[in-house]
């Protein structure tokens, strides 16, 4: 269940944009008319019906993005993000829907907590937001949450994101019971006895810098375990933020064997490698860590060939004072909602590593499918979920540009290309004018 505040529905004509919907196989210069929040017509020189007109010549109109992995820090750390600020940031990033992780304080592990979040979202969310609930109570890995009641109360999925479900026996029970709720389990794969104290990818750079290594196998071992359990139980699952070549290999094999597994990858793992850590910038510290060139290459390949079907920001806001410390003292996590498209366009599309249409699909329909949500579509009769992109705009990322309450972006100070001009989410103008 996705909820947002009840803004007025749009009556708009977007005129003259290059309209690209990779799923519907549309790529043409068209006018798009939105009538009362629903796409009413596609075509040349459409009647404006006295609607608002957005002159979009030279711009690109695509299905708006879906972010399956966001930390809204509410409840507990409203100084870092709120539902209002996080959804405003998402709207500015071109998103029409986001899913929030339950590792808050308190953890979203009861219908009461979940209900209060849904109620708050109805009052303040700029775009539709869905909430995942925890797999285990308090995310302590000991006891299952009341998943049936949570699903009925509106949980869009279940995850202990931030920590793994360490015990294989409990993970199996979660897969078994999760099936009766009809909701997807989303798994943070990390074998903590291997990643213990790890600060960055274990490899040549960590050897030189002296940081405790967080080896790839700490992730892939858990990926293999969870895929084995999913195969045995014949249940679907979703793998969060894959970072390692070995994980991709395991996923590809399992999918070929018929396991219903989906996976996501973050813009930072697609754009950067552990070489970047040489700057010692705490805004490059996240879990899982940036990995080697071969890992990055494997992730890009997996994104292209459809082994990985979703791009997720893992938007993780942190207070300024918590990141203005030496790297080892800083918490894991970087923001990403407002920079995801620009990062991917600048680092993947422009250099010719990934076609634009793949990026657009993996940011929109792909993640929606993974959770069984409606896919944003540019077709007559579909709800208007549209993002207007300026591929020629080049600009510098500064703290002032963020709507998020936090500024721990790995792109701070960088010049990027590709700007979101407007976002229509669920038929309502969420960003732009």
């Amino acid at each position, binding site marked *: 269940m996705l909820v947002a505040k009840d803004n007025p529905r749009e009556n708009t004509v977007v005129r003259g944009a290059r309209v690209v919907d990779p799923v519907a196989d549309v790529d043409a210069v068209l006018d798009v008319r939105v009538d009362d929040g629903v796409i009413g017509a596609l075509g040349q020189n459409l009647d404006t019906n006295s609607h608002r007109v957005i002159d979009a010549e030279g711009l690109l109109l695509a299905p708006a993005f879906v972010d399956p992995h966001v930390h809204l820090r509410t409840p507990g750390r409203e100084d870092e993000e709120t539902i209002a600020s996080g959804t405003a940031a998402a709207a500015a990033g071109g998103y029409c829907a986001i899913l929030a992780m339950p590792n808050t304080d308190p953890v979203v592990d009861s219908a009461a907590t979940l209900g209060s979040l849904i109620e708050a979202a109805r009052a303040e969310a700029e775009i539709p937001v869905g909430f995942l609930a925890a797999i285990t109570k308090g995310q302590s890995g000991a006891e299952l949450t009341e998943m049936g009641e949570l699903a009925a109360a509106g949980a869009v999925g279940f995850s202990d994101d931030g920590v793994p479900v360490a015990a294989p026996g409990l993970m199996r029970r979660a897969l078994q019971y999760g099936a009766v709720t009809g909701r997807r389990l989303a798994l943070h794969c990390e074998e903590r006895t291997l990643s213990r104290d790890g600060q960055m990818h274990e490899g040549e750079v960590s050897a030189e*810098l*002296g940081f405790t290594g967080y080896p790839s196998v700490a992730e892939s071992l858990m990926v293999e375990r969870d895929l084995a359990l999913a195969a045995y139980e014949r249940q679907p699952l979703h793998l969060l933020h894959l970072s390692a070549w070995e994980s991709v290999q395991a996923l590809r094999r399992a999918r070929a064997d018929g396991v219903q597994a989906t996976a996501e990858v973050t813009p930072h793992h697609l754009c950067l490698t552990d070489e970047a850590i040489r700057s010692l910038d705490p805004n490059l510290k996240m879990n899982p860590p940036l990995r080697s060139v071969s890992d990055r290459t494997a992730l890009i390949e997996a994104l292209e060939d459809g082994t990985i079907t979703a791009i997720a920001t893992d938007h993780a806001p942190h207070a300024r004072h918590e990141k203005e*410390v030496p790297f080892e003292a800083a918490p894991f996590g970087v923001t990403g909602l407002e920079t995801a498209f620009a990062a991917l366009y600048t680092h993947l599309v422009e250099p010719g590593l990934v076609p634009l249409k793949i990026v657009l699909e993996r940011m929109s329909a792909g993640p929606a499918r993974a959770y069984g949500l409606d896919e944003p579509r540019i077709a007559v009769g579909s709800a208007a979920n549209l993002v207007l992109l300026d591929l020629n705009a080049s600009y510098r990322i500064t703290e002032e540009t963020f709507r998020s309450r936090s500024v721990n972006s790995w792109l701070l100070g960088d010049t990027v290309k590709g700007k979101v001009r407007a976002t229509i989410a669920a038929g309502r103008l969420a960003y732009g004018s």
Partner: protein
Amino acid sequence: MAEIRVMREDLRPPASPPKRHFISIKDVTRDDVERLLATARTLERSMEREVKKLPTLKGRLVINVFYESSTRTSSSFELAAKRLSADTMSIKSSGSSVDKGESLKDTAITLGAYDPDVIVIRHPQIGAPNLVARVTEAHVVNAGDGKHQHPTQALLDLYTMREELGRLEGLHVAIVGDVLHSRVARSLIQALLLMGAHVTLVGPPALLPRGVEAMGCEASTEISVIAGADVVYVLRMQRERMQEGANYVPSLREYAARWGVTPERLRPGQKVMHPGPMNRGVEIDARVADHADALIETQVRAGLVTRMAVLYDLLTSGPIEVKTESVLEVA
């Protein structure tokens, strides 16, 4: 009424050049090291005089901030500054008070308010000196940051080797022990390779960092390879690494038996070095530590003059080019 004028771009005073720091061996070139070693040698000669104090840095302020316990590094930095007539201030802080109280950033800003010329910092976390360099105007000298770097230790070790063996180019140095947790090893490997030496690391598998060969050295778990080296550099085996659950090696006893540097494992004439403090009977046999071929006391003496050279180099406007890129990048 005074006329308000906008100063033209070309009339503004030139921006002050970026401060030079000594944070990592990666910050310096081979020429920089040569110059620092030459300065250290000059200073060592001056130390032979009856009155050892030089007026060079009179009126300058050097603040030593130590967030970790240290005997030789803190004392030698303090003495180095005093021998050059600088004013010194030493601040010690235990790890726990840092966690509970003031952040490193705020401490650095506070100290920066005294306009120190140099801040010497030791900190248990990698990158702490870079943070201090970002928020103060002082030249920053890294006296050890976590497992990352200890560049003045590397410099004093190079000085010791050059003085004792007459060369660094082509020298073969075996570094034995816990490389994984050693900032001394990391900066020494880089410094030796910079000067054209050949480096072999020797230790238990779990204490040799995965991928370390990419730095340009060799790695082996076999202690017998130290016989091929001109210098055997023994690292301290830290007892805290033996805590329950760590299991880097089964026991100190087993470590000593397999990797301890004993007279039987050395060739006559091989030089032995150790950054201190030593665990006699663990990584180094007492007979080795006390032998004439051990340069451990020489290293301590070299520590004073090389640290004097670093302070002198940073604060005098000689033909000194210490690159500051790594610091500027994070700024």
